[in-house]
């Protein structure tokens, strides 16, 4: 009986350790919910009473390549709007992409917004392993807390329409 207890203890410990190291796959981000802690790879920017738009991409993904000019347009439109410029942050996370590969993508498409590398799929797993591209809209509240207001797979296509949707769904003024 003592031996069985030992076996159970060792297996439980190993399972817990293994689970932690492998990073159990979570579910996809849910509208109304919050993002999991994505550190140390990524820290959520906190524009006060603002919005963070996160693109989950891969330089190896044909649709992300095709969508890159549209995402650039979105960024340019945000930057060109004095009201939205300080309120909306756009970032990209390259899942399964090394810093070198993220840099290749950045240079290839002349991307001016911040891109992060998730070379070991740690963030990808925490976000429920979405296919790419995947867009997440996060509203940052005045007290620093946040809420997901958009979570969707696939290209958004029209930058104007998508930006209007982000403003409407997040409720920013």
């Amino acid at each position, binding site marked *: 009986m003592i031996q069985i207890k030992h076996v159970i203890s060792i297996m439980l410990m190993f399972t817990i350790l293994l689970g932690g190291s492998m990073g159990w796959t979570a579910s996809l981000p849910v509208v109304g919910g919050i993002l999991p802690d994505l550190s140390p790879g990524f820290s959520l920017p906190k524009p006060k009473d603002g919005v963070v738009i996160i693109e989950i991409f891969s330089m*190896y*993904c*044909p649709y992300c390549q095709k969508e890159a000019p549209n995402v650039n347009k979105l960024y340019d439109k945000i930057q060109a709007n004095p009201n939205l410029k300080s309120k909306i942050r756009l970032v990209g996370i390259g899942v399964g992409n090394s810093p*070198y590969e993220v840099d290749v993508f950045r240079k290839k498409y002349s991307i001016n917004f911040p891109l992060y590398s998730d070379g070991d799929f740690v963030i*990808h797993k925490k976000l429920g392993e979405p*296919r790419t591209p995947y867009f997440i809209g996060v509203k940052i509240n005045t007290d620093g807390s946040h809420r997901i207001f958009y979570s969707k797979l696939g290209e958004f296509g029209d930058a104007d329409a998508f930006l209007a949707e982000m403003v409407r769904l997040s409720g920013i003024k």
Partner: protein
Amino acid sequence: MKKRGSSKFIISCCAVIMALAIATAAWAISDAYKENIYNPGALKPIDSKLKVKMGQKALDFTLPAVGGGKIALSQYRGKKNVVLSFVPAAWTPVCSDQWPGYNIVRDMFEANEAILLGITVDNIPTLFSWTNQMGKLWFPVLSDFYPHGKVAQQYGILRTDGVAERAIFIIDKKGVIRYIDVHDINQRPSLEVLITELEKLK
């Protein structure tokens, strides 16, 4: 007795969880393929015995290309360095997100006077459908389908289940093999390493 039964249950659960965790392979699938990617799960990393080595003249071959016609390795002799990128199979996770990355770095290959030849053991119609999802590829995709996996077999990278390894061979303009990476089939090779190896040929 009841206690022993629950102990066995806990042990079984732990074993299943551990097996699942160990079997986890990481990849990100592009939405370009929708729900059409077959997930074979985690596979034995390498399942073949290499028959060629660095410094040796590369074995010549001629294979049909998806774009039509046939391509021989020897046609690049004296003209271009050649990167052979064998991938295991169409419509599988890691393979589907490997060549599209190479597709946006044509300039890096050309800067190193290199052509890329993508090869699988799939037939032409399958490769046609699959590579169409990747956008227009700038490099030839070759079918090592019949006699099945003959080239992969000659290079010693045909796995026991009949698919090729995920392998990269760099062959210089003289036809000499300068780099070999028979990679863990579950993981994508590093682009940085590939480009660094190409730059060494200068």
